[in-house]
């Protein structure tokens, strides 16, 4: 009978769809074990912990819902009789998944707020290495305050090809400032504060290994602080579209032992 072959064809579509959904679920989950976050090299472990908690939680629901979707598609792909299925409301069930979702999410929100507070609130008290980062198409410049711990004043009116950072030439505080182009050198295990400003458009200061990302805005000074924990060489990226050279606005971060850092700093100061 024509209707029967049509029903059979239909049922095959259902089987194929169920298998496809299950197959996609298995493959997509498997590759999460191959690709992960870049190696963590700062004290921002709480961000990663929260990431893995959410990954586990969403992973569970991802697998559960896709498996059930496939299962229903498979199981109900063809039935001759659908009597008794005029069932379309269940106050209990609907309340269950409304409240259930909320209950699961509330701890996530609070954990998020705690971690956010931890990384965004004021940096710890005490002496802290402060460095200024200046973003411009398509280069990162870094300024260290030198031996006196004070930056020289700067002003946009002074920007020029020679005075790239716009530093006040007469300010004594600026005489010992150290200017690095596309290279940031930091001591390991010491909290550092980076003051960010842009000379032109928006950029974003992104340290993939240190879990740091902060937009750099013209007209607004933004700030991040973090503590590198592993000696090594890293890349700094621009994460906000800033023009045709956005993709090559790359700089380097070199994290060194305290002794090596001091040696480097002295060398730079003597130049």
């Amino acid at each position, binding site marked *: 009978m024509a209707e029967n072959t049509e029903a059979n064809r239909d*049922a095959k579509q*259902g089987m*194929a769809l169920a298998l*496809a959904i299950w197959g*996609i679920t298995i493959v*997509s989950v498997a*590759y999460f074990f*191959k*690709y992960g976050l870049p190696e963590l090299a700062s004290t921002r472990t*709480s961000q990663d912990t*929260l*990431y893995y908690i*959410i990954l586990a*939680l*969403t992973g569970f*629901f*991802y697998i559960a*819902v*896709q498996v059930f*979707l496939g299962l*229903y*598609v498979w199981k*109900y792909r063809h039935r001759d009789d*659908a009597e*008794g*299925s*005029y*069932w*379309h*409301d*269940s106050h209990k069930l*609907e309340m269950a*998944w*409304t409240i259930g*979702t*909320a209950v699961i999410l509330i701890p*996530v929100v609070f954990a*998020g*707020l705690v971690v*956010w507070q931890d990384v*965004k609130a004021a940096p710890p008290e005490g002496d802290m290495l402060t460095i200024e980062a200046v973003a411009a*198409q398509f280069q990162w410049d870094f300024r260290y305050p030198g031996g006196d711990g004070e930056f020289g004043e700067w002003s*946009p009116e002074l920007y*020029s*090809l020679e005075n790239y950072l716009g530093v006040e030439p007469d300010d004594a505080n600026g005489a010992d400032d150290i200017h690095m182009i596309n290279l940031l050198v930091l001591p390991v295990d010491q909290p550092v504060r980076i003051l960010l400003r842009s000379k*032109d*458009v*928006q950029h*974003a200061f992104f340290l993939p*290994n240190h*879990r740091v*990302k902060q937009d750099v*805005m013209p*007209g607004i000074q933004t700030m991040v602080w973090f503590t590198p924990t592993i000696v090594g060489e890293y*890349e700094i*990226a621009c*994460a906000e579209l800033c*023009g*045709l050279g*956005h993709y090559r606005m790359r700089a380097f971060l070199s994290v060194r032992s305290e002794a090596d850092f001091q040696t480097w700093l002295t060398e730079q100061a003597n130049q």
Partner: protein
Amino acid sequence: MSEGHDDHDHGKQSFISKYIFSFDHKMIGKQYLTLTMFMAVIGGALAMLVRLQLGYPGQHAEFWEKLFPAGMSQGVMTPEFYVMLFTMHGTIMVFFVLSIGPVSGFGNYLIPLQIGARDMAFPFLNMLSFWTVLPGAMIIILSFFVEGGAAASGWTAYPPLSAIRSAIPGSALGQTLWLIGMIFFVASFTMGGLNFVVTILNMRTKGLNMMKLPLTTWAQFVVGILGLLSFPALAAGAILLLFDRSLGTSFFLPAGIFIGDELFPHQGGSPLLWQHLFWFLGHPEVYIIMLPALGFTSDILSTFTRRPIFGYRSMVYAIMAIGFLSFIVWGHHMFVSGMSPFLGTVFTMTTLCIAVPSAVKTFNWLATLWRAKIRFTTPMLFALAIVSLFVTGGLTGIFLGTNAVDIQLHDTYFVVAHFHFIMAGAGLFGLLAAVYYWYPKMFGRHMNEGLSKIHFWFTFLAYYGVFFPMHYLGIAGMMRRIYDPNTYDYLKPLQPVNTFITLAAFVLGAAQFIFFFNYFWSMFRGKKVVSENPWEANTLEWSTPIEPGHGNWPGELPEVYRWPYDYQQPDEEGDHAPQWQAPSKVGTK
């Protein structure tokens, strides 16, 4: 049914008043769909070029220079051309495909049919809205051909990049045209939204109260409100940005901007203000795209499971809750922008609230499938795919909505993966499901079944193939909008993933030609529809003649006796009782 019933009440119409400056909501809906398809071809082609560069960075082919003498000089794509490509891909897809397709296209086509009205409340305004968006679309396309090329500041157009001409080549005339195109779009969409809301509130047929509306129409109703309230913010922003560009004002430009050895005289503006205005529109816009698709999904699932939709009331409340929440979450696009960290905590709380109505919808769909009697038609396959995509894309929203986790993932490919599943995925699959489902009503013919199924399978599998691996890229730290990821050493190992995505994208793109061919071929050669209600569905549009004329119903307007989901209603014979069927027993609902 005989031919010629088109002319029942209006006599002969001229070609121009019937096909071009038509007042008929059905023709206007089709005009929008035609424009949508045209724009989708362009937006899709741009995406293919983006993927070409990412899959095979710097590859060289002489013939490209003939096609794009400036963008691909000597056969290699230039970085500025690349930026232009993804900027215009986003703009065209978000506004001129996924908004005008499901909303303006199917909204106009379906609302009067589903509520039992002869037309929209303001037919002239309806025609005007189409003829306003059309020039907008043309301006956007033509901007490729002006000096400096099309806009190149991303679809988000953040100033100063979008405000200062020397910041990037596309920030010359191209950006001005982009802003003007947007203003046309907003004007059109506002007229449409007003029409939707007024029509649904005032023109429902006898017996059709709001709680008997199909979920498709409910979604369009909320979308109309969202559009009316959010799009003016974009229009205001676009006008202010035009002032900054052309009249020397400083709404978005602070003091101290220095580009190309020139210090700009602006004072006191803030680029953050643009972000607030843009995302105040931008986030509701996501739901403007998604809600109609979710409405189609509910109606199609119900029709082809031969079961009532589960939890109709909670579905309606979920649509309203999502609509309301969409206005108070825009700041989650700005967690790392430098706005007050306190705002970051507020927006995390509001954002994660959206997970609740979204979960309600998902679980209600699953409950609808339980003990169903599924008919695997092509629209049903697409609707089931939407459930899968919606879950995938919805869950990744929890990562991005949690501000502390967003720090790492912000502006990476994880975001690109997320919104292509939740917004673009629902929008595109919703649009396709709707075309397959309502095609027999629109053209009186069926689409070719074999081609439809082939199209579904390639689209569904390739879609996951393109967008799921982008999660891995984002987690590994690959930024969005970069011309060549291999600039960075830590991204070099990801090249095979990028190449795979590109190949899958080419399959996805090529598969759409099956659809276009099927769509136009079936208009003339498709199997003729023999019954008014070929899917045995319950909503009012299936009570019209096979090819409804202007005015929709030849005689009286139908009266509504029941909600749209009476499948397997125990008091009625047969497996479904349409809305226009009077109850067989006195006293039943």
